């Protein structure tokens, strides 16, 4: 067990609090159990150290330059600003959205450490102290107690524990909020129900909502671009329409089917919203949805209106105000189209953001039903609205459970029922369902690609998922046997794509990945050529 870092060390002036080494990380199953099978770890560049926060572990999630104070007065201003933000987190009007859950988690943690071994990042890192799920929570708790509670002001260390609030503490805490994927496995096992994932989420909010500091991929290029341009991918309404035409042509070419994808059709039953990343990186996924929905006779439409063609809502990871804005835009689009309900495609966080979390930022005419695509897809399979031949999917398949859709929303069985029906070699990874591990790309990590952050993601955050996948396929790990990881979520697919690339697992083990609807179309009897390409 790593004991080199103490809680009070968060404020220790030093170049870097910890350094990760390959030999310390969690061991992987064959063929990665031998040295030299995975890339070495790198050092942060010196020029990064001047502009960004490398004082935690050398990795950079916050790619907005974060200036170090040059004088004591500047440091005091930073401290005051941070404390102002913390006060607002504990204020009814500014943080009604999470006040009760946050206070409960700050006030009642028994520090029993029952949660530790539930955290894939803590385990994958070789139990590095700063990644212990209670570490960042305890830092925030001590600051809160010391500076903002009467007991802390009177009794000091005796009630708050040892902590010093300075630039190092604040800067490291900002980075540390982005070393947790908000998967909330730790909360599942806590005897008191304390939520360390929520505390990480609230720290992110403090930095974003008070200081305007958040990873560019989430804020400037994420929610801000989403609201300005229409999509966090920078896809414009015109670009979207072009892609739809391309997808229609591609469907014709690959399947021989003439499908006119409905766009902006008023009065449809369903407004289907995909993560716009699908259109750019995996257009076969919206294509497969179109084939299935048309074949099954579903009344549906896509939207080409600003924000309406991108289901993502990065606000759910770091900023409640941005969350509310994007959710509101999504339902505005649905209202204009006069649909009965919004259905979210294969995107986990969009599921949770629109159906669960944003449920309580909508009211009156902006409150319309929002649902998952999974029960509809299962209904189509169950009622045999498609002619499917499971033999066409006769290769090993395992299922990844996107945290946002499964553990945090309870959509567990429909996708499994489909796979059991159409994939003869389907096998569960362990653990699975609501106890499955995060892909490692959760809470924005999949799209955060600045500087050396992808290395941390691939080495630490996705390591547990990689181990699970390898273990699930150990009986057929030979690369000549093509295998498929079904990940019904865009961000999970992104993380798994990068993971397979980083470990060269497609070449070494024959592992491929994709969504659920692709497997359904691949099994359709009247489509001659394989829809899923594994080569």
């Amino acid at each position: 067990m790593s004991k080199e870092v103490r809680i009070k060390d968060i404020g220790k002036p030093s170049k870097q609090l910890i350094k990760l080494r390959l030999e310390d990380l969690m061991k992987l199953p064959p063929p990665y159990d031998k040295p030299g099978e995975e890339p070495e770890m790198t050092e942060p560049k010196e020029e990064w150290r001047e502009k960004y926060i490398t004082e935690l572990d050398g990795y950079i999630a916050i790619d907005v330059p974060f200036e170090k104070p040059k004088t004591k007065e500047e440091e005091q201003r930073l401290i005051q600003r941070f404390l102002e933000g913390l006060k607002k987190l504990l204020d009814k009007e500014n943080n009604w959205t999470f006040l009760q859950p946050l206070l409960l988690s700050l006030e009642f943690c028994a520090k029993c450490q029952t949660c530790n071994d539930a955290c894939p990042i803590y385990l994958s890192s070789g139990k590095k102290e700063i990644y212990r799920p209670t570490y960042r929570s305890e830092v925030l708790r001590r600051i809160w107690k010391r500076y903002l509670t009467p007991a802390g002001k009177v009794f000091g260390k005796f009630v708050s524990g040892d902590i010093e609030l300075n630039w190092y503490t604040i800067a490291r805490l900002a980075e540390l909020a982005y070393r947790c994927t908000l998967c909330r496995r730790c909360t599942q096992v806590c005897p008191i129900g304390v939520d360390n994932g929520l505390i990480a989420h609230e720290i992110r909010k403090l930095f974003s909502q008070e200081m305007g500091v958040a990873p560019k991929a989430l804020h400037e290029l994420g929610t801000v671009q989403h609201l300005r341009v229409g999509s966090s991918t920078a896809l414009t309404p015109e670009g979207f329409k072009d892609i739809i035409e391309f997808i229609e042509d591609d469907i014709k070419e690959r399947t021989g089917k003439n499908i006119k994808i409905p766009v902006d059709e008023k009065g449809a039953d369903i407004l289907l919203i995909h993560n716009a990343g699908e259109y750019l990186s995996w257009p076969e996924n919206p294509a497969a949805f179109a084939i299935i929905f048309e074949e099954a006779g579903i009344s549906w439409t896509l939207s080409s209106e600003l924000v309406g063609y991108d289901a993502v809502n990065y606000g759910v990871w770091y900023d409640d105000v941005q969350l509310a804005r994007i959710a509101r835009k999504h339902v505005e689009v649905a209202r204009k189209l006069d649909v009965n309900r919004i259905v979210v495609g294969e995107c986990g966080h969009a599921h949770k953001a629109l159906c669960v979390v944003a449920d309580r930022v909508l009211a009156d005419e902006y409150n319309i039903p929002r649902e998952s695509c999974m029960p509809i897809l299962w209904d189509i399979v169950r009622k045999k609205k498609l002619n499917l031949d499971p033999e066409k999917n006769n290769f090993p398949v395992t299922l990844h459970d996107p945290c946002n859709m499964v553990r945090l929303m309870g959509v567990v069985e429909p996708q499994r029922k489909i796979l059991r029906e159409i994939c003869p070699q389907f096998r569960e990874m362990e653990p699975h369902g609501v106890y499955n591990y995060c892909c490692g790309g959760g809470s924005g990590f999949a799209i955060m690609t600045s500087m050396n952050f992808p290395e941390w993601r691939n080495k630490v955050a996705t390591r547990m998922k990689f181990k699970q996948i390898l273990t699930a396929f150990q009986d057929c790990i030979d690369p000549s046997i093509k295998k498929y990881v079904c990940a019904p979520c865009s961000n999970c697919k992104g993380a798994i794509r990068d993971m397979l690339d980083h470990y060269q697992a497609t070449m070494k083990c024959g592992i491929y990945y994709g969504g659920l609807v692709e497997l359904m179309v691949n099994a359709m009897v009247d489509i001659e050529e394989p829809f899923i390409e594994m080569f």
Partner: protein
Amino acid sequence: MLTPLQISSYLAFAIFVVVVVWKFVKYATMPIHLRWELYPVPHEPEHEHGGSFFEHQNIWQLERKHDKLNELKEMFEEMLFIKRMFQNKRDLWYVSWPFHAGVYLILVWLALLFIRAVLVIAGVHSLVPIADALIMIAGAIGVIAATLGCLGLLIKRVGSWELREYSAGVEIFNLLFVLAVLLTGLFAWIKFDPNFNIAKEYMLSLVSFGSQPMPELPKPILVHLILLELLFIYIPFTKIAHYVGKYYTFHTVLWEDAINKPGSEVERKVKRCLQFRVSWSAPHIAGRTWAEEAANPKLDVIERWKP
């Protein structure tokens, strides 16, 4: 005529009750928060696999069914046996569970002392021997289990790096305080009051508001009683009162999944919160109400953070 000791007993109990109620009220009157449930949610009919109503279509038309029995089962398993710790942190459970079970039995013991006093005052003497037997069982097992558990918790808290590092001084003090109360109680029971007769008489004097005589208290029992009163006053102000938090974390956060349907109570509460003013200082926030901020976004960003 009430003695100062009896008055202090009433006061300690009253402070305990008032502060605990205040804590419950504090959390109960907080604004509604965004939904943040975590599956499995035990009242969902599909709880076996962790499923929710989202596994169905047309959720607004769906007739929601709640498996209240399973929710109670889950609740009692967690309350009585600390199930999550048993499954995930067995070494700590071996001391935590005896401690908690012991404390529950001591609370039962106190309740039985009260009931016995009421029976005596009401003249229902036939039931008193039953109460006496139960008092003996609950008191004896309770104080032994709680003392051993508390001692074990203290050893763990101090001896294990991962527990000690995360504990402030007050958390060690809390255990020492509870242990002091338990050890003096254990000593008083074994040495001076093996049948809890003094405890029974003292409770009778309290319940009868002094009309029944207060027993002579040997000094060790007096010390124990004063410590116990101080503990009663102290508990609600500390994390020892985590039972308050546990109720809310499970019932109003992790298992709370009410849909915001038009015209519902949830919607009424949400609408009130949307009128709260946002005063966050980031450049993309304009200081309007939540509803206004959502409707008309301001989208300024900073290029770099400067102190």
